[in-house]
């Protein structure tokens, strides 16, 4: 029983990729200023701010660039779900406090190369890394291999997902990778973690996204609101298959993505068949495929036919990752979840240009998933 409807009235993005000489925080400030301009309001109008970065310092340091207005600014540190958690908290603050405008921001700037992890900081024994098993890529390969075995997904589908990402990236001026790559090149690129090749994996990157949210009755005049129907976070249950697990339980449990998506649909009062466009976590090609089923967009195993028939393309019946996803944008962790929501807003506004989903999409789902087993989902409607 929501007392107040919450709307997204402004979106801003600093392009993803590599930006020499520009800090993560500076990219965050650029995105925030763009979102404020898009909303038609100014930084001193903001009543509450939530945000975070994983590798680029405290988000509330933005006040020293945007201005010292006294705003309550909370730093969130939830890895891949930083953006989704920040949006959830801002949504709750607007409704609980009856305040007018909130800013949500995520940014990051990671060094080149794979994300490295220290076993001790994660509560893991040293031998796990010494024996060559502390690599995120192995987790992705193994979760996917079992899924392919159980539900008949082929390597053709993996290559098709990555090729779609780069084609969509070509049509997205804010994407990092903007050149199409053929399915053959993708399949023949270096095998990182069988069945996954180099071009099927996203890479650490840089970028920033900000959103201005408002209670519906406080949307700035002239802004173009879309409704934030839900923002839901879930953590893992015993028996899920997560990265960096020396063992798995002999009984399996559904992924946190299942509960986050169900929760977001339920809170939004929307059925999954109403989703017109979806942005879902594609750390690698197989993740997009598995997350299609975990979010309820299709049944396990139906992805193969959907993908090979073109249903998940921009002009298909179930467009997925229309901005090129993590594969074409790279992953600045703090910004990645908000990039999805940015793209959904752009699609519902009809502003996506060459990659616009046809037929005036009205309902959009976003989904992130990451270590140590957390997922955040949102539903927005035109």
């Amino acid at each position, binding site marked *: 029983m929501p007392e107040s409807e919450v709307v997204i009235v402004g979106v801003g993005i600093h392009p993803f990729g590599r930006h020499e000489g520009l800090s993560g925080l500076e990219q965050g400030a650029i995105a925030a200023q763009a979102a404020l301009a898009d909303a038609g309001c100014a930084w001193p109008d903001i009543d509450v701010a939530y945000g975070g970065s994983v590798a680029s310092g405290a988000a509330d340091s933005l006040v020293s660039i945007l201005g010292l207005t006294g705003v309550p600014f909370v730093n969130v540190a939830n890895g891949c779900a930083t953006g989704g958690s920040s949006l959830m908290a801002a949504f709750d603050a607007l409704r609980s406090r009856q305040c007018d405008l909130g800013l949500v921001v995520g940014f990051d700037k990671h060094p080149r190369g794979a994300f490295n992890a220290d076993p001790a900081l994660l509560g893991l024994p040293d*031998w796990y890394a*010494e*024996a060559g*098993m502390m690599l995120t*890529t192995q987790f992705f390969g193994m979760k996917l291999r079992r899924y392919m075995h159980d539900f008949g997904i082929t390597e053709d589908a993996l290559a098709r997902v990555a090729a779609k990402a780069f084609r969509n990236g070509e049509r997205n001026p804010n994407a990092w990778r903007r050149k199409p790559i053929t399915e053959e090149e993708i399949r023949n690129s270096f095998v990182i*973690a*069988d069945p996954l090749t180099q071009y099927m994996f996203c890479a650490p990157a840089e970028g920033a996204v900000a959103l201005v949210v408002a209670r519906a009755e406080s949307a700035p005049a002239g802004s173009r609101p879309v409704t934030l129907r839900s923002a839901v976070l879930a953590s893992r249950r015993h028996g899920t298959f997560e990265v960096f697990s020396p063992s798995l339980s002999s009984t399996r449990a559904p992924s946190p993505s299942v509960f986050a998506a169900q929760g977001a649909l339920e809170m939004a009062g929307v059925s999954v068949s109403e989703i017109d466009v979806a942005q879902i976590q594609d750390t690698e090609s197989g993740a997009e495929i598995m997350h299609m089923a975990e979010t309820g967009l299709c049944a396990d195993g139906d992805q193969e036919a959907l993908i090979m028939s073109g249903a998940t393309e921009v002009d298909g019946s179930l467009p997925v990752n229309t901005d090129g996803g993590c594969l074409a944008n790279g992953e600045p962790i703090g910004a990645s979840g908000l990039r999805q929501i940015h793209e959904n807003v752009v699609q519902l506004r009809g502003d996506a240009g060459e990659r616009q989903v046809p037929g005036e999409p009205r309902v959009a789902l976003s989904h992130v998933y990451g270590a140590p087993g957390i997922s955040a989902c949102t539903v927005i409607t035109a």
Partner: protein
Amino acid sequence: MPDTRFIDPSIATWPGEAARLLGGRCDGCAVVTFPAPKGCPACGGGDVSQVELDPVGTVWTYTVQGFPPPAPPYLGPASPDTFRPFAVAYVDLGSVLVEGPVLGDPSSVRIDDPVRVVFPVLGQDQDGNDVVAFAFEPIEEGSHA
């Protein structure tokens, strides 16, 4: 003088012919975890008893590690000259699924393959000691474990 040591004595009964991996079984809910946890991840209970894991099982899933893991910490062969892609699998030991390398040709590993736990030398530590770790070895069809 360099010696031979096990990578972590708390995770197996090595040495010996009948060496076994050591897990922990929750006294409350009977869930088995490897290595033995301080508290049970299933029910949060604090009482966990040591248990020897079954030495044979089947491949539940696998991948092939295509590039050398960062060394250190990796103790196996990691230079471009010596590294060879190797399979890694979760092996269903009945009570629990354990992650470990699979010996032999990585391209021949398949889901449901029978495997047994073995304790080969992984590499050398800084002091030149041979470091023994655990791995899984395919059980040939027709052989008896």
